[in-house]
């Protein structure tokens, strides 16, 4: 059934700061009014909590990375659609060693990271790239809020994390970036996930959000003031924010995002992600193999077609690209 009030949540991350600006500047409200609905934009400081809340049904849409979209809402039975693909990490996530120049040197070390997150995935991919596996290192779960201060202690010799923590850590002496997401371009994707059922029943909601997003993108790309605003809101300044942007491949234009989603590489990426998740037991007890949860992409479905819970759907971005919103 159609409804009028929608709630979107987002958490502080360079690729999602536009939602803060959209909320403060009134752009989201403008587009919501255009489609005659109300959209409430809510900020979270705790990324995990925002996804949990979405999965529990408190929100209709939420910002998250592709791997989390698979392991949290999709594995939790919430059929979800990646409606807007905003960017992919192009160096924003990194593995950093205090001693050692290459990821091979990580052998035998403890690596502090947020377990089961994109950092964990990145580390797994990094180790794989030199023929090692997670068995060769010891993973220590560390909360993201405390990673920077943790890194200043002697106990911590290696971390895997994301920005802005990466740039903070790299600014400290004796920090070597040995692997980052630019080595696996396009695999860590930041999206706006929308509840599929809500989206089907309320295409207006999708249209309003997509319309708002690309108007924000436009302003963000053009205006330094807008970027400075976003930097400030994320606790840093313009320079800090732009250095984070440098390692993020933003899709300012809807056309680019559509192209990315339509490419067959996405399906392969999601296959990697699904296998990683399955190996770490993230797909639930019922999962017999990595394909237990079906993932639909324009290039085809990976996994069980009868249990599709995560969909990459470019249709709204296409409308934006064609100026139909």
């Amino acid at each position, binding site marked *: 059934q159609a409804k009028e009030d929608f709630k979107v*949540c987002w958490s*502080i991350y360079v690729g999602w700061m536009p939602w803060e600006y959209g909320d*403060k500047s009134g752009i989201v409200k403008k587009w919501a009014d255009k489609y005659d609905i109300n959209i409430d934009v*809510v*900020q*979270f*400081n*705790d990324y995990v*909590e925002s996804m*949990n*809340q979405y999965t*529990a049904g*408190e929100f209709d849409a939420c910002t998250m990375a592709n791997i989390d979209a698979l392991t949290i809402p999709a594995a939790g039975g919430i059929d979800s659609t990646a409606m807007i693909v905003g960017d992919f990490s192009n160096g924003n996530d990194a593995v950093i060693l205090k001693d050692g120049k290459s990821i091979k040197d990580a052998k035998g070390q403890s690596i502090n990271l947020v377990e089961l997150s994109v950092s964990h995935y990145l580390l797994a991919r990094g180790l794989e790239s030199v023929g090692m596996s997670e068995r060769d290192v010891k993973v220590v779960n560390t909360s*993201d*809020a*405390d990673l*920077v*201060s943790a890194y*200043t202690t002697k106990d911590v010799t290696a971390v895997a994390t994301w920005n*802005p*923590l990466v740039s*903070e850590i790299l*600014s*400290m*002496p004796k920090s070597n970036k040995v692997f980052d997401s630019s080595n696996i371009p396009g695999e860590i994707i930041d999206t706006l996930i929308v509840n599929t059922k809500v989206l089907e029943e309320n295409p207006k909601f999708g249209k309003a959000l997509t319309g708002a997003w690309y108007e924000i993108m436009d302003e963000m790309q053009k205006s330094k003031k807008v970027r400075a*605003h976003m930097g*400030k*809101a*994320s*606790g*840093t300044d313009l320079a*800090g924010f732009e250095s984070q942007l440098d390692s993020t491949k933003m899709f300012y234009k809807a056309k680019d995002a559509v192209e990315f989603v339509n490419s067959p590489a996405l399906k392969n990426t999601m296959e990697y992600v699904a296998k990683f998740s399955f190996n770490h037991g993230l797909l639930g007890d019922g999962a017999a193999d990595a394909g237990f949860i079906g993932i639909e992409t324009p290039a085809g479905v990976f996994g069980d077609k009868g249990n599709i819970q995560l969909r990459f759907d470019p249709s709204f971005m296409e409308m934006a690209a064609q100026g139909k919103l």
Partner: protein
Amino acid sequence: MKRWINKKPSRPLAIVLGILPFILLMALYQWGSEVRKVENPNDKLLPSVSQFYAAIDRLAFTPSKRTGEYLFWQDTFSSLKRLLMGVACAAAIGLILGLITGAIPLIGANLNPVITALSLIPPMAVLPLLFIVFGLGELSKVMLIIVGITPFLIRDLYQRTKDIPQEQLVKAQTLGANSFQLINRVLLPQILPRLLDALRLSLGTAWLFLIAAEAIAATEGLGYRIFLVRRYLAMDVILPYVIWITFLAFVLDWLLVKTSKKVFPWYHAAK
């Protein structure tokens, strides 16, 4: 020569002695800060005094470019509002339930076991559930404080109600009081000063939960700011905020003591 236990410092000596450790701590900090600055001039962990000054000036005395507001005062205001609302609600619930379970044995037998069990649950562990149940607005932060301190308040006030001499209850009954009059005129007024005592004890926990709640979902507040800038290890902001929180905690405690002495002279004289 007097025994050590009999030597009492004079007033000025006591003040000097009391201030000494603070000076030592500050000197220790200063030293640590300088050592680290020599190693790495960009060290953020132990900022110098001038960096504190700059941070305070920026947050408290310069309007924010984004919104024209003074972030520091806005944070303080939001946090205090949440804290006071949470503590006030918890006090009201704790008072009513503590009083009723303490006064009416049937209700006490009914509710005490479940309250004891609830009070043992670490609220941090059930945060996700709390957010689901109470949503995410202002309410959720206030609720977390309430959930965090109410069980303690109920149990404490239950015990305090039980501690009121049985003789007084009997006396009131021989003066013709019914249950409700007795609770209203004999127990309630005597529990109120004890409520203030209990609140003093639970303020520390209330701050803890406020900060935890603001760390998860908020857009302003003292705890929010600390968690926001923690990613950048901005100790020049964090430490002044911590000192400010400590000071606020001290003032609140002091206010409770003063209020209690002023409003309930009989309670303090009798002790």
